[in-house]
């Protein structure tokens, strides 16, 4: 999509695209097996224009802030366009947060209006009474509209002018990063950041008319905002929404709508892998052998570059299960184990691993496809510079990034902005190193760093990826013992693995495998204790484990002596 970065603002770019692709299908929404909406680009134009008029009538003026709080659906992108066209700053909020937190972010962002749906509005209502300025609620149609709420479907009295005056440096969105705890971190993203990023990504991974992106990650999340809203609508492609996330309907949607692209987090990839394996194991031994052989041949023949046609031929039943057109799965938002990404690549479903932060739009680095790689988080995308600040003697240091896709700073927090951004560089807080081919390897978060008795640095994420795929483990997390039970020192820590076993798992087998894999690790990276935990781990919207929250849950229910068993 060349030239996008020369357009001054998102409103302009979206308007141009909606006109250019008029008759094409822009949005499809399904609820279970039923299609509930299908809109062409022209219909998106009309709906967004209508809602822009409605927002104006409710008093929204250029420069105001308007929040969206909705589950993934066709109304999400339409609302986003309307907010941008009304000249307001868009504040996408996470529908998975507790209502009290949502109300806190509404107050913090001083939102003048909130576009939401009735189920959310009803839960939020009691928490809005304490706000000094109560936002106007615009609620998607419902037979019993909450009191005082405005109807999303009401017709405006006049045709609105679309506000297209914003400059590239003006703030388009305030996006709250999923970082848990502390003050809200509202990243102020300028129009320039989104346009530059969309242009670069659309050139690297061509998307356009006929392509279909399945929007699964929450739309407020930077990855879906870019890949499940902006890029498809700017390039004439289609976004597909499914109102339920139950695995059987996800597979049906992939098949029925012949999805070509999707974005996923590791947890979702694991669920898809499980589904494929279950299907395969129900086949005859001969069919299973043929399937394994297909995967091996595919691996050999696609070493240099993926070939969708070839893989589909070799592994037809698997590809048919997903509609036969799925070409790319973007993965990020958490550490993606290489074995998991490789498993998909070997079967002709390339998982493109990238790395980004809310503070940087969506993506800083991404792996290419020729050849495919799963051992790094990729090279800096064009326009982005990555530098390793103050590397330690073994190589890793803090990852700093610079480029046109960075935020302007945190809302109402100049101190944190100054700590995070200096001389145009964003200090990511992540630790990593660059290899000879400029691929970035992440080793952990700076704040999660563990220092062992031998004075060695250990990154828990690094150990976790070495143990990925542990049999019988539903999920696990590596901690320093003193992270859970503070000992007043960061030195001399022991590594603990907290494991939640799958129901009915063979614990002996799991532990034996853990011990043997543990022995293969450098001695200072070995786990010394096991902690069995029965509750699901707390996770952020992008499915990263909330380490602090999990450590707190453990600390509050168990003493160190009760919890730890030598490995």
């Amino acid at each position: 999509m060349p030239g996008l970065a020369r357009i001054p603002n998102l409103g302009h770019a979206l308007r141009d695209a909606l006109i250019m692709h008029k008759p094409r299908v822009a949005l499809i929404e399904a609820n279970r097996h039923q299609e509930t909406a299908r809109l062409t680009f022209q219909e998106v134009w009309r709906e967004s224009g209508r809602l822009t008029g409605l927002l104006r009538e409710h008093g929204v003026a250029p420069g105001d802030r308007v929040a969206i709080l909705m589950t993934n659906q066709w109304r999400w992108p339409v609302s986003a366009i309307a907010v941008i066209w009304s000249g307001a700053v868009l504040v996408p909020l996470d529908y998975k947060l507790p209502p009290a937190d949502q109300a806190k972010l509404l107050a913090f962002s001083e939102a003048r209006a909130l576009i939401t749906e009735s189920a959310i509005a009803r839960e939020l209502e009691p928490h809005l009474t304490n706000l000094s300025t109560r936002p106007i609620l615009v609620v998607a149609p419902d037979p019993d509209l909450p009191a005082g709420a405005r109807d999303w479907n009401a017709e405006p009295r006049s045709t609105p002018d679309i506000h297209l005056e914003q400059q590239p440096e003006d703030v388009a969105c305030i996006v709250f990063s999923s970082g848990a705890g502390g003050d809200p971190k509202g990243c102020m993203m300028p129009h320039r950041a989104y346009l530059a990023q969309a242009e670069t990504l659309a050139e690297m991974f061509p998307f356009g008319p006929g392509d279909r992106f399945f929007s699964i990650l929450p739309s407020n999340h930077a990855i879906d905002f870019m890949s499940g809203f902006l890029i498809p609508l700017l390039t004439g492609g289609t976004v597909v929404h499914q109102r339920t996330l139950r695995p059987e309907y996800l597979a049906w949607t992939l098949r029925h709508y012949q999805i070509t692209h999707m974005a996923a987090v590791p947890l979702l990839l694991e669920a898809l892998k499980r589904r494929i394996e279950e299907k395969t194991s129900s086949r005859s031994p001969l069919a299973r052998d043929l399937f394994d052989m297909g995967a091996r041949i595919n691996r050999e023949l696609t070493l240099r570059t993926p070939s969708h046609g070839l893989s589909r031929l070799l592994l037809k039943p698997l590809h048919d299960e997903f509609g036969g057109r799925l070409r790319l799965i973007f993965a990020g938002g958490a550490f993606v184990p290489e074995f998991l990404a490789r498993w998909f690549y070997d079967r002709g479903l390339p998982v493109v691993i990238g790395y980004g932060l809310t503070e940087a739009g969506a993506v800083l680095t991404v792996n290419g496809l020729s050849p495919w790689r799963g051992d790094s988080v990729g090279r800096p995308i064009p326009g982005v510079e990555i530098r390793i600040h103050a590397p330690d003697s073994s190589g890793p240091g803090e990852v700093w990034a610079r480029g046109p896709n960075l935020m302007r700073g945190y809302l109402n927090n100049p101190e944190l902005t100054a700590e995070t951004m200096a001389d145009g560089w964003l200090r990511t807080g992540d630790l990593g190193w660059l290899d000879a081919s400029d691929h970035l390897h992440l080793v952990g978060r700076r704040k999660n760093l563990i220092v062992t008795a031998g004075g060695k640095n250990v990154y828990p994420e690094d150990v976790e990826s070495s143990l990925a795929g542990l049999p019988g483990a539903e999920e696990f997390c590596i901690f320093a013992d003193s992270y859970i039970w503070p000992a007043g020192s960061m030195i001399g820590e022991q590594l603990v693995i907290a494991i939640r076993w799958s129901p009915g798992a063979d614990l002996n087998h799991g532990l034996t495998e853990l011990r043997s894999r543990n022995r293969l690790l450098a001695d200072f990276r070995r786990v010394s204790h096991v902690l069995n935990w029965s509750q699901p781990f707390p996770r952020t919207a992008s499915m990263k484990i909330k380490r602090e929250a999990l450590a707190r849950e453990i600390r509050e229910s168990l003493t160190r002596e009760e919890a730890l068993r030598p490995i």
Partner: protein
Amino acid sequence: MDRILHRLLDLAAARFGADRLALKPQDDMYEALRIDSMRALELLTELENEFGVEIPDYELQRVRTFEELAAVIARRC
């Protein structure tokens, strides 16, 4: 309501191989059944089929105990 709750506990225990007698209405269902949110959604589908109701995923978000889940179903029966 009691009928729904008992049937719900029967189904949950059978599906995830838990001891039916050990499940209490006030138990945290994720903890008692050792399941994550994806598996809880699978249970929801089964409950919909049993009670002939339709429950959006969103409604499960704030539910922790069996009692709360039964209340969600009862509201729609």
